[in-house]
C-alpha cells in the first residue's frame, strides 16, 4: 500500500486559557508554516487543533521546539464531487466496510473540495475506498 496516500496531519493540544489559540497561531506564523486546512475540536477545558500544513515533518519539529504539544497523525484525503450525494458515496463505502470515521473536515482546495478524515486503521480503509472506485488523494494533490 503506497505510503503517499496517507496524509500527515498535525494535532496540537490547546488548553482553555484565553489567547492560547492566538499564541499557537503566532508560532505557526513565525515559523512560516502555511495551514491548508484545519479544524478545532473542543471539550470542557481544552481543545485539539488539527491542521494540514505544507512540509508537516519540518513544521512538527518546529512547533515541538516551542514547547507546544503536537503529534503527527495520518488521515485520508478524498475529493468531494461538487454534486449532491458526493459525501454519501464515500460514507456508504466506509459504512458497508464497517470502518468508523473518528472525525473529518473539509476545505475548498485549490482545484476541488477535499474531505480529510481520520479512521483507526488507515491502510484497510484506503484499500476499500480504492477497490470501490473512490479516488484517494496524495499529499501533493490536495
Amino acid at each position: 500500500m503506497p505510503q503517499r496516500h496517507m496524509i500527515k496531519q498535525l494535532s496540537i493540544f490547546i488548553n482553555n486559557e484565553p489567547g492560547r489559540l492566538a499564541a499557537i497561531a503566532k508560532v505557526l506564523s513565525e515559523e512560516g508554516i502555511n495551514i491548508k486546512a484545519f479544524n478545532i475540536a473542543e471539550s470542557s477545558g481544552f481543545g485539539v487543533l488539527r491542521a494540514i500544513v505544507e512540509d508537516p515533518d519540518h513544521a512538527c519539529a518546529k512547533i515541538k521546539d516551542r514547547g507546544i504539544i503536537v503529534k503527527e497523525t495520518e488521515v485520508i484525503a478524498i475529493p468531494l464531487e461538487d454534486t449532491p450525494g458526493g459525501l454519501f458515496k464515500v460514507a456508504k463505502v466506509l459504512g458497508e466496510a464497517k470502518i468508523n470515521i473518528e472525525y473529518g473536515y473539509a476545505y475548498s482546495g485549490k482545484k476541488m473540495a477535499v474531505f480529510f478524515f481520520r479512521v483507526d486503521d488507515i491502510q484497510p480503509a484506503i484499500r476499500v475506498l480504492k477497490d470501490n472506485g473512490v479516488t484517494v488523494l496524495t499529499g501533493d494533490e490536495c
Partner: protein
Amino acid sequence: MYWNPRIECIPRDELKKLQYRSLKSLVYNLYSFNAFYRDRMKAANVHPDDVNNLEDIVKLPFMYKQDLRDNYPTKMFTSSREEVVRYHVSSGTTGKPTLVGYTQGDIDFWTESLARALTSIGIGTGDVMQVSYGYGLFTGGLGLHYGAERVGATVLPASVGNTERQLELMMDLDVTAIACTPSYMVHMGEVAHKMGIDLVKDTKLRKAVLGAEPWSEGMRTHIERDLGIKAYDIYGTSEISGPMFTECEEQNGLHIWGDMMIIETIDPDTGETVAPGERGELVMTVLKKEAMPMIRYRIKDLTAIMDDDCPCGRTSPRIQRITGRSDDMLIIRGINVFPSQVEHTLMQIPEVGEQFMIMVDRQGALDNMTVQVELSPDYFSDKMSDMMQLKKKVSSDMKKYLNIAVNVELMDPGSLPRFEGKAKRVIDRRSL
C-alpha cells in the same frame, strides 16, 4: 441554664488549680507508662518534676499530626485494645490515615462536653435535633448524636445527603435544631426554597449548630436573616475527640471547658506564647483523654483566646471563631485536603506531570476544587474520545486518593508556575 454549673461556673483561680493538678498527674502518668511521651520529653530535656505550676506547660514539647501518622495505627495509644470502645479515622495526607481511639471514659467526657455546649445554646429535652453530619469514620455525626441524646433531645440521625427527604422529615417530625456544616445549611435553604418550603413558616427549625469547616460572620448573618435560624459555631477535631465546643447564647466566642482542656495560642513560627486577644496558632492539651492523650497538640488553626468574663456566667476561657490555618490545609466540603496530598497523587498518574495549581471556588453553597495539571506529551491524542477518557481517568484517580470530586484542567507542559522557595499552589477564591 447550665448542664454542670459547678464546673462551668467554677471561679477562675480554682479552675487553674484544677488544671494544674490534672496536668501534673497526666504528665507523670505518661512519663511513667508511655514510651512515646517519655522519649519526647527526654528529647526536650524535661522531666515531670519540672512542671510545678500551670505556666510550666510551656516547657513541655509540642505534638503534631505527623506523630499520629508516624505511629499509625495504635502505637500512641495508652490504653489496651480491650479498653478501646471505638475508633474514628480521618483521611491522611499521603494515603495514610489518622486513627483515633476512645475508651468508654473518653466517649463519656466527649459527650459531657457536648451536653454542656448544647445546653448553653438552649437545646435539651423537648428538642428534636437533626444530625446532618456524616455518620461513620468522621467524628461529627456520632459525636453530636451522643451529645444531643445526653441532654434529652430526640435525635434524627439524618447524616448527609438526600436533602429533599431531610427537609420532609424536618417538617414531619417537628425538628427544632440541626447540626451540619454551614455550607450544607445554606444548601438546605436553597433546596427548601426550590421545593416551596419556607423554613420559618413551614418548619419548627430555629437553631443550627454549624462547623467542621471555616465560616464567617457574613455567612452567619445570611443564615440568621435569610433562613430565620439562629446559627452557632461549633469546634473540635478528631485528635481531641471530635466536635466538642460551641458558642453559648451570647454567640461571642467558643467556650473551651477548662477542666477538660488547657488552651494556648502561639506564634506558629517561633512557638512562643502570644497574649490573649492576639491571633496565634491554637495549641490544646487534653486533660481527660485515656486512650490517646494529647499534650500541647498543634492543631494549626488560627484564633485568639478570649479571657474576659462571658455574660453567660461560664468561667471557661473562650476562643474566637477560627480565622485560618497556619499550614496549607484546605477544607473542601468538610474534607481536609493538603496540597502535598495532591502532589503525591499526581506522582502516581503517568499521564500528567507533577506541577499543579489548585483553585477553590464556592458555587452556590458548595465548594468546588479544580486542579490544573500539565499533560504529558506522550499521552496526547488527536482523538477527543481518548482525551476525554484521559481527563476522566486523572479525575477519578484524584478522587480515589483525596476522597473528593475534583475538576481537572489539562495544561501545556511548562505552562504552570514554578516556585523557588515557598510554593503558592493554592488560589482560594471562596468568600466565606
